């Protein structure tokens, strides 16, 4: 498992979700919304100032703050 997190994904880059740093309520919420291990995820853009970030996952757009995205572990190849 790589140590990269979703917060490090640059706009335009894709990756595959590989897991979570912990299993707290926030991670559970994100899983319910489709940010699941094995799903492809793409960084669509970031807000002015670099935070929050907007991702495409499961066919829809989801915004996460950097701190929230940092919970999600990713594998490099989308």
């Amino acid at each position, binding site marked *: 498992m790589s140590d990269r997190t979703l917060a490090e994904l640059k706009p335009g880059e894709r990756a595959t979700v590989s897991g979570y740093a912990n299993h707290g*309520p926030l991670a559970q919420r994100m899983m319910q919304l489709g940010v699941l291990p094995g799903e492809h995820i793409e960084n669509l853009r970031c807000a002015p100032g670099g935070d929050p970030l907007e991702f495409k996952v499961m066919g*829809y757009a989801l915004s996460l703050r950097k701190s929230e995205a940092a919970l999600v572990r990713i594998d490099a190849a989308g």
Partner: protein
Amino acid sequence: MNDTGLQPSLPKRGADAPQRVISSRHPLVALIGNPNTGKSTLFNALTGLRQKIANYPGVTVEWHQGTAIIDERPVRILDLPGTYTLTANSPDEAVAVDALLGRITDLGRPDAVVVVVDGSNLKRNLFLVTQLLEIELPVVVALNMSDRLGAAGIELDPEALSDALGAPVVPIAAARNQGLDPLKSAIGSAVDADPPTPPPIIPEIRDSARSLVKELDWREPGAVFLVTRAIVDVGGDAERRLLDRFGQPAQAGLARARQALESTEPPAAVEARQRYQWIGEQISHCQNVRPMPPTWSERLDRVIGHPLAGTLLFVGVMAMVFQAVFAWAGPLMDWIDGLSGMAASAVTGALPEGAIASLIADGVIAGVGSVVIFLPQILILFLFIILLEDSGYMARAAFMMDRLMRWCGLSGQSFIPMLSSFACAVPGIMGTRVIPNHRDRIATILAAPFMTCSARLPVYALLIAAFIPRTQVLGVLNLQGLVLLGLYLLGIAGGITTAMLLKRTALRGPTPTFVMEMPPYRLPNMRSVLLRLWERARLFLVRAGTVIFAVAVVIWSLTYFPRSDDLAAQFEAEQAQLAAGGDAQEAERRELENRYSAAHLEQSWLGRFGKTVEPLFAPLGWDWRVSAAVIASFPAREVVIAALGTIYAVGADTSEDDPGLITRLRNSRHDDGSRVFTLPMALGLMVFYAFCLQCAATVATIWRETNSWRWPLFAWSYMTTLGYLGAMLCFQVGSG
């Protein structure tokens, strides 16, 4: 049957079919779905104007209930808050679950559930659907936006989906009134149907739930569902309720069930994986997605979401909204003001002079006027807020502003309500409903009234024109303009500080998340927009309006009573004298009337009260006249100008640029001969109006939106104290 459902169908059996009374015996159908699926549009299409709003007791979650006519019989439709799951981890979701389980006492358990699903985002939408299939209620899936699937490259077989789910699937396009008849017949059949067989997801958990229900001997519909949720959502709402009711045996049962899972992951993670796995398998049989070029919404987002272009566009949109509010609302407000003035004079002319005429003219009509005068701003601002929300732009605005707002301890969703408050705090506070986190919402509601609203402007204009010299500063800047700018900044600073303080004290809690869907851009549905606009206006008039009106009448009675016979006799004598003198000038008569009004006010309850509290306001440099005028302006800040007009005997119909009033203010003196309106005192008065909450409409709206008297009372006391201290500081330091 009519297709739109907007007209109630007529009873066909004539005399033996009396007017329908919607009662609790009529079938109840709950409407649920993810946010942004067009659920409200469908609700409006089904029920039209036959709807009402109710508040869930204790929390600020509202629901809408309406009536649809299905197969000639009325069916009650309950529009539940949009939710992604039945986890019940927010007040909205908890209300949805309560309603589905029949725990909202005056509603009863629904007979069926209609779940609205966005066909172009099927996978995530089906998460909620699979949970609903477990609540032991008949389910109808309304596959919305089915008209757009082709353009999105999606081929979907509704029958195959229906077979997979074990529930009817009806393709509809709610915004175009398509598919409503088939949906209605599906609902009509569902209310008498049996619940579906739940899909084989999380079988171990559901088995444990079933045996625990048996063990606890809990015979209520939905018990298995509730216990399932209690096992899955560790520390959640369902668990708490189960433990409250059954105590130790339930606790032991939950522990056993969780242990039986033998998973390193928490049960909720197991649930999410299994659900999406099952959904993925089913979808592969009934949906075919062709790769398509980016949709227009995605292309639009490349511009709107661009850091530079998007920011410029955002500033442009906000500037346009404000321009529209001031350009359109101003004339309408003047018109309403003029109309209520005309009505008042008509009453004074038609009725004999006395308490009744004064009550109607200065109490009732002025009271109604002070309510209605807010409507243009509220309607225009709310029209924009609703359009921004329904088009999907609101989520982008929150996205762009999140970083800035987080600096004040809030989040991006607070930005638009705060900005709206620069026109008027009332629609700003009503607009805080978009803020999902309760603490953030309250902090925004309490910070919003600090923003310099349009009602403060006339007060500032009067005091600046009268007491700030028109000198140039640094060659280009005007001192009067600088003071106005300073007052705006003072308001912003007050609001930000308040939000920061609250978020660090009374409203402290974990930082709310920004896990938020960015919905695709959509053209707002005009019927939905207008219905919601109408609903906001009605809520304001009925709920806030009654409070404002009552306060206006109370203030009127304070200025009118007691009547002094001596004063009246004196006035009549002087009037007779003036008339006897022959060619009395109109100006002289007016002067006499104004003088009499001033004398009357001085001995009225308000005047006496002003004199009683004069020592309280002495540290601010105010005399009884200023104190009385400030108290009279409790219902609305701008009233202070009319009150000063009456007190200083230039007449109540004065304006902020009346040279007569300005001169009288400048010449007003304390008993010892010193001037009342010195520069420090006038600056202090402006600071007072920058901070104080002299606005019954705002107080009433805070009450209505927080569903408690605690917050409006706190806001009023806090802001008034702040205004008092600010004014005292100005006066004391300035007078050195």
